[in-house]
């Protein structure tokens, strides 16, 4: 208790009468209960993922092996990268639909511009990431300057980017250097490249969320007015938020090409709503301010495992969105019930 109670450390005598400002001493059970309820939005998806994995394991051998981890992470990684950007935007209290267009554009640029020269490929890879950042920054500027809904602005930029992708490469195709696609299947110390990317993402996140920018994004999503009153720049925060989202969409596009070995002007739209779904299942509030990337990762894996289940059950693949939708509803409902009882136990 000494860590959580400032006065017992400092030895200050203010009588604890249970008046408005002072909470009465709580029992150990009550403290545990409130700690659990506070973290419910993360615990619920964890429980769901474990349950899904157990079902999956009962249908198939070798679920809890490194091979399976490598495969599933590779399957989830494009969504995960896209959802990382989406998570940052959702924490800000916005939404980014343009990632669909950016992913399409990224894959067609890679498939048509990389050529065979490694230097040229590397330069274009950086170029694509830069385009992602710029397009995102433009989203942020439009949202702030025109005072438009993020939904509308990014819907428009999604449409524009998709059209641009179509002009560059009207149908699926193109080619990527063999070294590039090799990266998708390469592994180190028994772990596939995707698992290493996952680890990098985690490192990034635990760094980012403790930077001033990370805190400011969460704060702005939580209460815009208060954040601006405290000195957060409205345009700066939007440029940073949507810029990061664009960068992660570009990274998702690049990763996707290592898996498919081709470009596609329409593939991006398959990631727009799932990226939001993964975040929401993982406990991110659409109203901003609450949640983190770990939740989103669990959400992305839940969606991926549902795909695997549908496959091993040999039912129509159309079941996948149905089950995903149900899981989404359960996750949201459970979190909201937990939040309500957390509030009740306080008052």
């Amino acid at each position: 208790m000494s860590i959580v109670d400032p006065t017992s450390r400092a030895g200050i005598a203010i009588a604890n009468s249970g008046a408005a400002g002072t909470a009465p001493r709580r029992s150990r059970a009550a403290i545990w209960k409130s700690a659990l309820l506070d973290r419910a939005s993360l615990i619920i998806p964890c429980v769901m993922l474990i349950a899904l994995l157990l079902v999956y394991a009962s249908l198939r051998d070798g679920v809890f092996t490194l091979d399976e981890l490598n495969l599933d992470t590779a399957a989830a990684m494009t969504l995960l990268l896209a959802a990382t950007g989406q998570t940052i935007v959702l924490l800000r209290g916005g939404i980014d639909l343009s990632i669909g267009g950016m992913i399409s554009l990224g894959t067609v640029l890679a498939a048509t511009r990389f050529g065979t020269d490694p230097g040229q490929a590397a330069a274009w890879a950086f170029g694509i990431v830069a385009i992602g950042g710029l397009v995102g920054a433009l989203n942020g500027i439009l949202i702030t300057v025109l005072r438009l809904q993020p939904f509308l602005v990014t819907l428009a930029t999604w449409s524009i980017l998709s059209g641009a992708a179509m002009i560059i490469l009207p149908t699926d195709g193109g080619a990527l250097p063999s070294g590039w696609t090799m990266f998708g299947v390469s592994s180190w110390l028994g772990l596939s490249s995707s698992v290493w990317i996952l680890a990098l993402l985690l490192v990034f996140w635990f760094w980012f969320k403790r930077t001033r920018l990370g805190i400011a994004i969460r704060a702005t999503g939580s209460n815009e007015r208060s954040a601006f009153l405290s000195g957060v720049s409205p345009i700066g925060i939007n440029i940073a938020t949507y810029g990061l989202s664009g960068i992660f969409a570009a990274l998702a596009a690049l990763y996707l090409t290592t898996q498919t070995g081709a470009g596609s002007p329409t593939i991006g739209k398959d990631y727009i709503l799932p990226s939001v779904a993964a975040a929401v299942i993982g406990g991110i509030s659409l109203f901003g301010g609450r949640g983190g990337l770990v939740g989103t990762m669990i959400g992305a894996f839940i969606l991926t495992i549902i795909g695997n289940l549908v496959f091993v059950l040999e039912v129509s693949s159309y079941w996948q969105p149905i089950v995903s939708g149900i899981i989404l509803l359960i996750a949201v409902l459970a979190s909201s019930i937990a939040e309500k009882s957390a509030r009740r136990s306080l008052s």
Partner: protein
Amino acid sequence: MTELLNATAITKRYGGITALSRADFSARAGEVHALLGENGAGKSTFIQILAGAVRPDGGTVTLAGSPYRPRNPQEAQQSGISPVFQELSLVPDLTVEENIWFRREPLSAIRTVRARAMREATLELFARHKFPPIRPDQELRRLTLAERQVIEIAKALSRDPQVLILDEATSALGPQETEWLLGLAKGLAEAGRLVIYISHRLGEVRQIADRITVFRNGATVAAYDTHAVDDETIITDMLGRRMDRLYPERKSTASQTVALGLRGFGVDHRLADIDLDLREGEVLGVAGMQGHGQRELFQALFGIGGSRGTVEVWGKPKTIRGPRQALTGRDGLALVPEDRRNHGLLLSKSVRENLTLSVIQRFTRFGITDPKRESALVDEMIATLKIKTGTPEQLAGTLSGGNQQKVIFGKMLLTEARILLLYDPTRGIDVGTKGEIFQLMRDLAAKGYAILFYSSDLAELVHVADRVAVLRNGRLAAILEGEDNSERQILRAALIETRAA
């Protein structure tokens, strides 16, 4: 005498409304300086100017001898002026310590927040100023309103300001935190800082303020040493004299029938033990300084938020669970809300649609509306209230403020409810329309309507209401009628902690 802060002839206009004209203020380091005035006297505008949130149209401010012109709140804080506003600047999803140090977090070599350093700084701050116990790692949204106010104060103090501005900071606090804050203010003054203290509680002001400046209608009317002045003088200076022309003749039309009876009515800790009878044909005024329970009373009666105690409507016990229940038919209640642009009107809809929105069933048969009946009702209402609109199809948002308010009145009257709850119905309305609204209120009362009427302008209550119920700290401080229904008596009851209910 060296003055730390000196403001001369500050003016500020918002459109046609003058918020400040010739406001002077002068205070020295090492004192608690109270700033007093009625609601709307310009205190808030003045401290927003000091805080860098609003820029004055004219006048000069000097801080420690040099000109002081902050362009934004950050510059004000860098100059050593920290405000604690009623409207909190905290973020619900950050923890207590993250809120206190927001944008000024101690950073490590890799640009991340040093959590240990931040915790230590928080505990040190809490210890130095003897803060009530609050866990620094708790998320702000889990805190009570009083605790949030305390954290707001902590945030201001964390900058170690030369000038601390406390704007009604005790209104959200319990008695113990209030004692703590008063002690804190005195301590800061003794340490050579300036504390500007704004409060409607004269008792607190007497307890800690060295000097008092009084604002009225945007201008400074008096400044004195606290010990050299009595309460009567302060109240007289706050009120001044006012012209009374726009008020209709008041003839009591109240019957003995109780339209709305409250017994032990309350809303959590903000309103308690209200016993009140509103009679048929009566205009019952409600008075109180900002934040003393008036808003809660009106909202709870209209079914917004929970309440306790018993409510009798036209002699029958009633539980009001939501606006729909409050509205129903001739036995219902109708509200003119505080914020008409957001809560009372649909600005992008026509006058007709606004008028008939809550009463569609009155001209609907078998689920189909009857346009003829509708337009008859609408035309009648536009004529009765003299709403200045081109056609009934004109958009409500294009009307003047006074006419918008008339549309809300019309909407309310169409519900046929005979108990009307009017929350500050004349705020921001031109004088002519004000007069019409007062006349309308008296006419309605004469027809047997029962009207509960809150106004932030005391003169309106005195001249329009038959009786005035005064709230203080969420409790009924007095019910004034006849001779006692005067601005002086209302202020006295609202401010001074005497005369039990």
